[in-house]
C-alpha cells in the first residue's frame, strides 16, 4: 500500500476493484465502513461477482474477468475528455509534460520494438526526447499540448476506450460504467480524494502488472497519489507477505528490493552499472534520485552477510553472492523439474534434483497441479517444512488421474519437518500498510515442531560443518557467512531484527560537522540515512532500517496517540521506509508546499522544513528543489513508463485463455509477451470446447489451505465443502439444480463440486454474444482432516502468467460445465 489501512477512513471515494476486501480483509474493511460513516464516502465495487464487498458497497458494476484494463482506460478517457482530472497536480507531479521520442509507436496491439522471434520487446524506443545521459535535458511542454507529450499520447492511446467499447469488451452496461466514471472522477481536484484498493484480482492475470499500472495512472491523473485518503493500495494475501517480499521472498530481489546479481555482473562495479540510475532530471523539480545511495545499501548488506570476511579488497564479498543465469521464479523451477533440464543454460544442465519448501504448498497453490505433481515425482529428495501434512508433502496421494501413484513408482524421498505456526513463535508481521509489528509467541509448538529460524539455522550449520570437514564447490560462499548470534542454532528474532536494522562498525561522523560522532562503533543506527559504502556500517535490509535502534525494538511500540487525527500513529510499530506512513507524500502539497486540502495534510512546508508525516523528501529542501517521486530519475510520477516488459502504456489484452477475440486488435488477442510454457502438460483450451469463463478466489471462513486440516473447530462448518458458483440462467440452461453435483473441466483436467446456483453472477453481453462465467474457491485439496477434503481448484488452472512478475493467471481461464 502506498498509504495504510487506517488511512482509508480519509477517502471520499473508494474503488474496490481486483479484490474483494470484505471477504479477504474483513478487519481492514472496517476503515471502508468508517469512511462512509464519518465522511459519507462512496464505495464502488467492480467485480465479476456480486461479492460480500458489493453487498455493502454503494454501487456495484459487473465486469468480465481479465478486462480491467479496458475498464480503467475507459475511466481515464472519461477523466481527460470531461476535464475531471487534477491538472495542477498533473503538471508538477507527473511526467505528463515530457516529450516522448517519435520513434515510439503503437499499432494494431503492438508497441514499437516487438521482436517476433523472442516474443519480447526491445525497449529503446520507449524513451523521452532529450536524454540527459547524452548531455541533453528532457524536453517538457507545461501546456501539455505538444502532440508528442506524454499527456497527448495518453489521450490518443485511451481515445479508443469509449463507454460503448468498454461495454462491448467488459460487459459492463454503459449506464453503470458512466456512473462509476462519475463517482471516481469526482476526486480529480484539490478538494476531494479517492483511493483504489486491489488484491490478487488484478495481480493474477497475464496482464496483472499493467492492470495495477492503469490504476496508478488513473490515481496520478486524479491527483490522488501521496495524499491522505488516496493512493494505490494493494491488500496482501497473508499477514506477513509484505515482510516476505521486503526480505527477498522473490528470486529477482535481495533484501530491500536491491537487485539479484546476474551472471555477467562479475564485480560490484558491473552490478552498480545496471542497478544505479544516473540518467537524471536536472531541471526544475530535479530528481533527488535516492537510488544514488544504492552502494551504501549494498555494501552494508554485504557487511551484514559476510561480516569481517567482507573487505574493500575483496569487493566486500560481492563475488561470493550467487549470480543467477536467468529466471528462477517458481513456475520456471517447476518446469525445469518436470522436464528434467534447465532451459536457462541451453537445456543441457539437468533440472533440480532436490527441493526444500518452507511454509508453502506448491501442489495446492501452484497452477496446473497435475504438472506440479509430475514434477515433484521426478525429484530425488524433497523436504517439506510445514505444520500439517499438506498436498505437497503427500503428493503421491493425489487422485490417480492427477498423477497419484504408489510410492514404489516414485523415486522422491520425502522428509517432513514439523514447523511451528505463526502463534508459536515470536517475530514481526509486516502488514499491507508496511507496518512492522512485533508479535509475541502465544504458546509452545507441539511435539518436535521447531521454529523456521531454528530449522534454517540447523540446516545451514550442518552444511557449513560438512564444508569445513570435507570441502566442496564454492566453499567461500558458505564458510564466509557471518552467523554471529548468541544462540547460533536458534537465533533470537530480536537479534535478527537488530541485524536487519543495521549498526555502526566504526565511529560515524556527522557529515555536516566531522568533529561530531553521531554513532560510536557497535551502536544501532537510526535509519538508512546513516548507512555508508565504505564498510563502516552493516545492515541486513536498508528498507527496514529504523526498526531496531538504540531506543529499542520499535516494532514493539504500541502508543496509539494520533495528533494528526488522520490515523498515522507514528509511535505504533514501525512503518518502512523511515517510519513514513504515506509514500510520495510530497505530492500531497502543491508547488508552494501548501496542502491541496488543508483538512487532510500529508506534509506541508512551514518556511523551514516539511512537517506532518515523515516527509518523502529531503526534510529541509524548499518546494521546487526536488520532484515528489524521489526514487525515480525523472523525479515525477510516470504516466508513461518504460520499465515494464509489456509496454509503456497499459493496453487491453484478453486472458491467454479467452472466450472472445480481442475487439481492438484481433491479431494480437492476448498479451504478446505473456509468460507461457511448452511442456506436454501445458495444454491450453479454446472457446469452442471450453466456452465458459472461470475465476478462482478465497473465502473469509478459510485460511488458505490450512483450515481443512483442523479436525475440530467451527470454521470448517461455516464453509464446509467445495462448491461452484453458477449463474441462475446458466444452471437453468443446463438443468443444474442448486446443491446438486457438477463437473467443471478445463484443458488441464476436471473436478467435481456442489452447485451453488445464484443471481450474484450475472450473464454478460460481450459484443452481442452471451458469455457465462462461473467461479470457485481454492481452499480444498486431497489432504486434510477427515470430512474436510475436496478437489484442488488448481487442477484446472494453467501455467501462464504476467511477463513482469511471473504470477500465474488464476483469475481468468476457460472451462466447461456439466451435471456430474
Amino acid at each position, binding site marked *: 500500500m502506498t498509504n495504510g489501512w487506517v488511512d482509508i477512513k480519509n477517502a471520499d471515494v473508494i474503488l474496490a476493484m481486483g479484490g474483494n476486501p470484505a471477504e479477504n480483509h474483513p478487519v481492514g474493511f472496517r476503515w471502508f465502513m468508517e469512511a462512509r460513516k464519518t465522511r459519507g464516502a462512496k464505495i464502488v465495487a467492480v467485480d465479476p461477482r456480486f461479492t460480500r464487498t458489493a*453487498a455493502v458497497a454503494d454501487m456495484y458494476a459487473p465486469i468480465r474477468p481479465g478486462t480491467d484494463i479496458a475498464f480503467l482506460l475507459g475511466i481515464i478517457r472519461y477523466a481527460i475528455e470531461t476535464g475531471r482530472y487534477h491538472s495542477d497536480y498533473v503538471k508538477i507531479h507527473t511526467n505528463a509534460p515530457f516529450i516522448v521520442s517519435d520513434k515510439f509507436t503503437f499499432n494494431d496491439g503492438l508497441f514499437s520494438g516487438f521482436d517476433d522471434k523472442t516474443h519480447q520487446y526491445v525497449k529503446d524506443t520507449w524513451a523521452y526526447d532529450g536524454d540527459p545521459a547524452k548531455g541533453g535535458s528532457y524536453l517538457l511542454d507545461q501546456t501539455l499540448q505538444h502532440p508528442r507529450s506524454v499527456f497527448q499520447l495518453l489521450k490518443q492511446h485511451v481515445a479508443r476506450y469509449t463507454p460503448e467499447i468498454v461495454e462491448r469488451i467488459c460487459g459492463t452496461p454503459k449506464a453503470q460504467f458512466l456512473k462509476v466514471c462519475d463517482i471516481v472522477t469526482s476526486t480529480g481536484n484539490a478538494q476531494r480524494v479517492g483511493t483504489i484498493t486491489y488484491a490478487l484480482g488484478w495481480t493474477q492475470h497475464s496482464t496483472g502488472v499493467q492492470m495495477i499500472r492503469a490504476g496508478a495512472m488513473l490515481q496520478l491523473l486524479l491527483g490522488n497519489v501521496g495524499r491522505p485518503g488516496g493512493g494505490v493500495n494493494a491488500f496482501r494475501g497473508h499477514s506477513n507477505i509484505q515482510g516476505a517480499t521486503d526480505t527477498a521472498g522473490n528470486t529477482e530481489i535481495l533484501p530491500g528490493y536491491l537487485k539479484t546479481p546476474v551472471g555477467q555482473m562479475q564485480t560490484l562495479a558491473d552490478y552498480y552499472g545496471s542497478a544505479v540510475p544516473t540518467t537524471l532530471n536536472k531541471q526544475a523539480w530535479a530528481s533527488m534520485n535516492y537510488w544514488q545511495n544504492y552502494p551504501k545499501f549494498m555494501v552494508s548488506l554485504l557487511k551484514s552477510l559476510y561480516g569481517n570476511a567482507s573487505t574493500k579488497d575483496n569487493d566486500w564479498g560481492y563475488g561470493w553472492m550467487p549470480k543467477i543465469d536467468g529466471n528462477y521464479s517458481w513456475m520456471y523451477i517447476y518446469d525445469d523439474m518436470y522436464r528434467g533440464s534447465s532451459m536457462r543454460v541451453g537445456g543441457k544442465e539437468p533440472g533440480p534434483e532436490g527441493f526444500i519448501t518452507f511454509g508453502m504448498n506448491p501442489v495446492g497453490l501452484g497452477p496446473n497441479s497435475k504438472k506440479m505433481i509430475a514434477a515433484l515425482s521426478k525429484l530425488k529428495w524433497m523436504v517439506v517444512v510445514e505444520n500439517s501434512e499438506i498436498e505437497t508433502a503427500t503428493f503421491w496421494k493425489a487422485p490417480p488421474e492427477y498423477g497419484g501413484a504408489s510410492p514404489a513408482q516414485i523415486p522422491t524421498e520425502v522428509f517432513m519437518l514439523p514447523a511451528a505456526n505463526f502463534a508459536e513463535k515470536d517475530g514481526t508481521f509486516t502488514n499491507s500498510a508496511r507496518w512492522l509489528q512485533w508479535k509475541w509467541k502465544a504458546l509452545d509448538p507441539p511435539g518436535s515442531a521447531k521454529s523456521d529460524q531454528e530449522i534454517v539455522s540447523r540446516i545451514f550449520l550442518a552444511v557449513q560443518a560438512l564444508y569445513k570437514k570435507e570441502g566442496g564447490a564454492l566453499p567461500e560462499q558458505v564458510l564466509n557467512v557471518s552467523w554471529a548470534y548468541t544462540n547460533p542454532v536458534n537465533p533470537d528474532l530480536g537479534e535478527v531484527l537488530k541485524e536487519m536494522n543495521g549498526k555502526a562498525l566504526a565511529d560515524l561522523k556527522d557529515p555536516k560537522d566531522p568533529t561530531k560522532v553521531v554513532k560510536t562503533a557497535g551502536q544501532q543506527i537510526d535509519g538508512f540515512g546513516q548507512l555508508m559504502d565504505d564498510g563502516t556500517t552493516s545492515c541486513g535490509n536498508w528498507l527496514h532500517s529504523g526498526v531496531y535502534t538504540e531506543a529499542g525494538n520499535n516494532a514493539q511500540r504500541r502508543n496509539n496517540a494520533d495528533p494528526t487525527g488522520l490515523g498515522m500513529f507514528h509511535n505504533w510499530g514501525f512503518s518502512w521506509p523511515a517510519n513514513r506512513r504515506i509514500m510520495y507524500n510530497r505530492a500531497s502539497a502543491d508547488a508552494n508546499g501548501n496542502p491541496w486540502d488543508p483538512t487532510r495534510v500529508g506534509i506541508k512546508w512551514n518556511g523551514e522544513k516539511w512537517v506532518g508525516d515523515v516527509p518523502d523528501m529531503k526534510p529541509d529542501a524548499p518546494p521546487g528543489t526536488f520532484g515528489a517521486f524521489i526514487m525515480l530519475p525523472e523525479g515525477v510520477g510516470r504516466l508513461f513508463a518504460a520499465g515494464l516488459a509489456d509496454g509503456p502504456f497499459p493496453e487491453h489484452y484478453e486472458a491467454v485463455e479467452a472466450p472472445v477475440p480481442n475487439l481492438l486488435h484481433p491479431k494480437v488477442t492476448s498479451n504478446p509477451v505473456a509468460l507461457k510454457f511448452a511442456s506436454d502438460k501445458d495444454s491450453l483450451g479454446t472457446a469452442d470446447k471450453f466456452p465458459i469463463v472461470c475465476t478462482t478466489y478465497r473465502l473469509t471462513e478459510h485460511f488458505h489451505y490450512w483450515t481443512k486440516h483442523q479436525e475440530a473447530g467451527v470454521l470448517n462448518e461455516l464453509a464446509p465443502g467445495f462448491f461452484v458458483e453458477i449463474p441462475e440462467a446458466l444452471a437453468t440452461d443446463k438443468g443444474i439444480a442448486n446443491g446438486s453435483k457438477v463437473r467443471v473441466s478445463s484443458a488441464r483436467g476436471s473436478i467435481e463440486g456442489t452447485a451453488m446456483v445464484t443471481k450474484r453472477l450475472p450473464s454478460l453481453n460481450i459484443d452481442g454474444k452471451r458469455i457465462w462465467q462461473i467461479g470457485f474457491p481454492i481452499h480444498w485439496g486431497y489432504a486434510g482432516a477427515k470430512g474436510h477434503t475436496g478437489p484442488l481448484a488448481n487442477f484446472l488452472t494453467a501455467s501462464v502468467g504476467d511477463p513482469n512478475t511471473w504470477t500465474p493467471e488464476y483469475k481468468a481461464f476457460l472451462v466447461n460445465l456439466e451435471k456430474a
Partner: protein
Amino acid sequence: MASQTLEIHRSSASMWGTRTGIRSLPTVAKYVDTTTCIGCKACEAACQEWNDLKRVPTSQDGSYQTMPKLQADFWNLIKFNETEIDGNFNWLMRKDQCMHCAEPGCLAACPAPGAIVQYANGIVDVNPDSCIGCGYCATGCPFDVPKFHAKTGKMAKCTLCVDRAEVGLEPACVKACPTGCLSYGTKDDMVALGILRVKQLKDSGFKDAILYDPQGVGGTSVVTVLKYNRPELYDLPADPHVSMGVKIWKQVVRPLGVIAGFLTMFAVFGHYTKYGPKEPPADEGRAA
C-alpha cells in the same frame, strides 16, 4: 448459565422477580447495522467459542449460509438472502439471534417457575436449573429462537453473553465484529446510534430505512438497522406479537388460576375454621 449477580426483573411462572429497586441498571442493547454487515461469520465463531457450544456439523448445499436456522448449539446465525428490490440486486445479511424482548413471549409462555428470567438490565435468559424442557417458550417466541437441546433436555438460546455483560464487557459477537456493524451499550444509546444511521441512509437515497425495534413485543434489546422497511426480506416478522394464546394464558388464565387457587385455599381454610376437621364416621373406623 444464569447470572448469579444480576437482579431479576421478571421470572417465568412467578408473579414477580427479585428486583429490590435499591440498585438501578440501565437496559442494555445490541446494535446491528445490516448495511455494514459483510457476512463474515466472525460473530458466529465467537459465539460458539465463548459459550463453549458444541460444533454443529454442516454440509454445503448451495448457499453461503450453511446453517439453515438457529440450533440449540448455535445461537448466532447470519442469514443470507439474495433478493431484487426495485430492480436492484441485493445480498442482504442479517444477524439472527434472541432479540431479548422487553415483553418476552418465551417468559410469558413458560410454565416452570424461574426457568426464564428477565434481568434488571433487560437480558432474557434461560435458567437450566429450572427449565423442564417443555418447549412452551418456543411457541411463545415470535422470532422462532429458543431450541430444545436433546442432550441436556433443556431449552437453549443466546444469553446476550450475560456472563460478560454482568462484568461490563460487550457480548463476544460484538467484540469479534470487524466492520463495526455491531455495537453494545445502553438501549438509549443504541437507539440513538440507529436513528443516526437511519438518517444517513435516508439522506443517501434509502427513503424507507428503519430501525427495527418492534413495539409489539415492547421493543427489543437487539435493535437492527434495515435499509428497506420490509423486515420479511431479512427473515424478520413485520409486526411481531406475543401470540394471543400465550397472552390469554399469561394475562387471563394464569391470573385466574392463581385467583382460583387462592379462592380454593380460602374456601378450604374457611370451611375448616367453620366446620373443623373432617371426622371419620365412627363405624368406618371400627371396621378398619
